[in-house]
């Protein structure tokens, strides 16, 4: 007898485990009627400020909560808690992204039926989060005007994993000579047809438009569930 190499076909998705958990989360979110929004961006693009503003503005009329992923600190959770919405930190340690199982375990003590909106802030990273479905209904990718207009060209993959792009810190646009047109065209080049919003969490500019967009999506989701 002599050894001879042979190929065995297997066909297995490497991220299947994550996808299975994400699907079961999505089913739970659907059953509870909660609209789930996740946020991805590079570090420092203003995810936390944007989320704090969003929670503060939504809270008087809607039941909101947030999960926030961070490598080491609880600073973001403390900042978000100022909105008085329930907030839970997911400390990922050295892991550069959130996975569906982390979201699942963070949600254990929460009754999803008591929520209208759940926000999930991913770890600041424009690469790794793109591979992991978290079961969300809507994924926002944020780019701040201070990062420059070419982020979409450098990280096309994350733009393909997200549904809507949000340009943040527009109050600083003039100071950093940010060209809205160039940024918009770059987003459209890597992801034709992607909706793009622009806002400033600091001045509140553009927030109303964003919130109406979210509320419309929540209504849509509940109407679809009622049929």
């Amino acid at each position, binding site marked *: *007898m*002599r*050894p*001879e*190499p*042979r*190929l*065995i*076909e*297997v*066909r*297995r*998705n*490497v*991220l299947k*485990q994550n996808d299975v958990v994400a699907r079961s989360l999505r089913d739970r979110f659907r059953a509870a009627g909660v609209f789930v929004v996740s946020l991805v961006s590079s570090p420092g693009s203003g995810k936390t400020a944007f989320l704090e503003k969003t929670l503060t503005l939504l809270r008087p009329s809607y039941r909101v909560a947030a999960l926030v992923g961070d490598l080491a600190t609880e600073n973001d959770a403390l900042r978000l808690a100022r909105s008085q919405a329930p907030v839970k930190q997911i400390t990922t340690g050295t*892991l*550069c*992204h959130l996975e569906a199982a982390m979201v699942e375990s963070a949600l254990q003590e929460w009754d999803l039926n008591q929520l209208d909106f759940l926000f999930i802030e991913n770890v600041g990273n424009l*690469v*790794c989060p*793109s*591979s992991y479905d978290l079961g969300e209904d809507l994924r926002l990718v944020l780019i701040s005007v201070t990062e420059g207009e070419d982020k979409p*060209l450098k990280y*096309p*993959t*994350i733009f*393909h*994993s997200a549904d809507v792009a949000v340009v943040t810190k527009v109050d600083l646009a003039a100071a950093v000579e940010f060209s809205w047109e160039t940024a918009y065209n770059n987003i*459209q*080049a*890597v*992801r*034709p*047809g*992607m909706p793009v919003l622009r806002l400033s969490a600091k001045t509140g500019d553009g927030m109303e438009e964003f919130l109406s967009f979210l509320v419309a999506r929540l209504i849509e989701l509940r109407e679809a569930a009622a049929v």
Partner: protein
Amino acid sequence: MHELSIAMSIVELAEEEAERLAVQIDAVHLKLGVLSGVVKEALLSCYEMACENTPLQGSRLVIEEIPVVIYCSRCRAQRPLSSVQLFCCPECGTPCSQIVQGKELEVVALEIQECVPNPV
């Protein structure tokens, strides 16, 4: 850098298959889409690390990179994308965002040693 956790998932998955089929694995063949969010070089070095002290130690990871193919609604055809910075049809220039191929992260085959009779 999430390649290490991806590599560990690959090793885990291959170990499962090896056990199920009762074979020794020489190489794992992987399809890796350009838009998978995983970097080939990083994955290769992480794979070696992930194999340490497992039955797959010493095995190879063979990566086939899968280019992006989009669907052009104007040509009504699938077209290979020439640049991930520009999602439009290379033939007619229509912007296209429907991805047909290029997000793969899939173990497609395992290479094993099989004992065959010596030629007479």
